[in-house]
């Protein structure tokens, strides 16, 4: 008896423990699904998703990316987005006026792009923002109540619509509306980044490559924002043979809509919208656009436009804190080789002649120099480019110092 009691107690404890773990696991998976599925929607538009959606990402933001490209590609494919966790600096691009020729209200403002983020008061987001427009296609999805979401979105319209229809599963489409984009040209921004990097090369040198793993600066040069998300859903259950169909859901507040006249429809929508307001999260407001017993369309409006994705470029941090050539982030992630052949500009100085002569004096010096350059992160840089290239003047000084090349 005593043993039986012990077994029951033990079994109960194990069950509680297992269920706790299981719940955590499911929640974790669902949360991960939300991030990934949303990111896949945004990725389909050839921009790099931001998750969670944020207002606080701007062109000129410089992030430190420490994981090697292989890990990043893996992360990107697994999670669907790239975490941006280490913001090193926010540079303020100075070329907006030239880039947009003073349009979009830039000439009358001094704080571009901030005046686009906090524009005039208006009931709809699209009229509040003067920034250039963007448009996204609609994306279709299926969704199921509870676990096993086929697609999860960080917009509350989906679960609310699902509940309004009283459906367990549905399919529908989502439209990223009131979308805007603004950015700056890579050249002008890169000049600013290089200027900043030159001033902070000692700090950046801390992130010099080690064991063939390079660190990168990720520079955001364009962001995409949305002010509204439209969700349209159709209940799958109304199509099934076993579905209750029609106006069978007496508990649904929408079930009587098809039988009402236009006035009643309007009253009903108002009534539903009133109930939606209480369901809305602080992040946005929901508005019912159309509804029937089988379909529901909702518009979720954000109080301020939120960044959903960005474009940027990566700059490798070299051994001495200098920056290497830029590569579009998207190209790195998709493993597309888009880096054009770079041209080194001739810029001889006194050290060029010293190093050139030192190399000619003894063939072993070439091996020594090559080995040292490899160790310093310049494996892909030609010796001649380094000896005569304008951009390598600082490196030549280091070479002369390191090998104690005599000044003649």
């Amino acid at each position: 008896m005593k043993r039986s009691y012990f077994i029951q107690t033990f079994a109960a404890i194990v069950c509680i423990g297992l269920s706790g773990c299981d719940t955590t696991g499911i929640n974790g998976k669902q949360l991960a699904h939300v991030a990934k599925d949303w990111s896949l929607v945004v990725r389909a538009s050839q921009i790099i998703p931001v998750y969670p959606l944020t207002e606080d990402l701007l062109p000129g933001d410089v992030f430190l990316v420490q994981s090697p490209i292989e890990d990043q590609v893996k992360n990107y494919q697994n999670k669907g987005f790239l975490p941006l966790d280490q913001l090193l600096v926010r540079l303020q691009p100075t070329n907006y006026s030239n880039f947009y020729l003073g349009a979009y209200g830039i000439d009358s403002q001094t704080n571009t792009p901030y005046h686009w983020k906090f524009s005039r008061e208006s009931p709809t987001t699209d009229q509040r923002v003067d920034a250039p427009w963007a448009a996204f296609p609609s994306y279709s999805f299926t969704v199921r109540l509870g676990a096993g979401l086929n697609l999860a979105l960080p917009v509350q319209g989906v679960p609310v619509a699902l509940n309004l229809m009283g459906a367990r599963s549905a399919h529908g489409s989502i439209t990223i509306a009131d979308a805007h984009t603004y950015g700056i040209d890579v050249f002008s921004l890169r000049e600013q980044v290089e200027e900043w990097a030159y001033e902070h090369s000692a700090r950046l040198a801390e992130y010099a490559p080690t064991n063939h793993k390079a660190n990168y600066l990720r520079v955001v040069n364009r962001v995409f924002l949305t002010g509204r998300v439209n969700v349209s859903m159709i209940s799958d259950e109304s199509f099934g043979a076993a579905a209750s169909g029609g106006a069978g859901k007496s508990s649904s507040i929408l079930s009587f809509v098809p039988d009402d006249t236009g006035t009643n429809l309007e009253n009903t929508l108002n009534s539903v919208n009133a109930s939606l307001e209480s369901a809305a999260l602080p992040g946005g407001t929901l508005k019912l656009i159309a509804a029937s017993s089988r379909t529901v369309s909702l518009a979720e409006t954000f109080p301020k436009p939120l960044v959903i994705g960005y474009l940027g470029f990566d700059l490798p941090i070299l051994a001495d804190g200098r920056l290497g050539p830029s590569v579009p982030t998207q190209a790195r992630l998709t493993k597309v080789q888009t880096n054009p052949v770079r041209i080194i500009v001739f810029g001889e100085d006194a050290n060029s002649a010293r190093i050139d002569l030192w190399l000619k004096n003894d063939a072993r010096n070439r091996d020594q120099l090559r080995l040292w350059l490899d160790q310093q992160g310049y494996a892909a840089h030609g010796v001649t480019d380094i000896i005569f290239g304008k951009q390598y003047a600082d490196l030549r000084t280091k070479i002369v110092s390191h090998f104690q090349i005599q000044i003649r």
Partner: protein
Amino acid sequence: MSYSQPELPKPLADIPKENVGQVVQSFIDNDGVRKLKVEQQPNGSFIITPQILENLDCL
């Protein structure tokens, strides 16, 4: 001694006429370039583009 064989060196542009020979020799001696292209730029200076590396000429 182990060190990596670099990729083809990048083209060197805006080379004054008097430095062309020096740069060509350096590409050959220091980078193992077997073939290179020397072109005059519109501004009168030269651009030298390495074509083949010593250990890649069999490709």
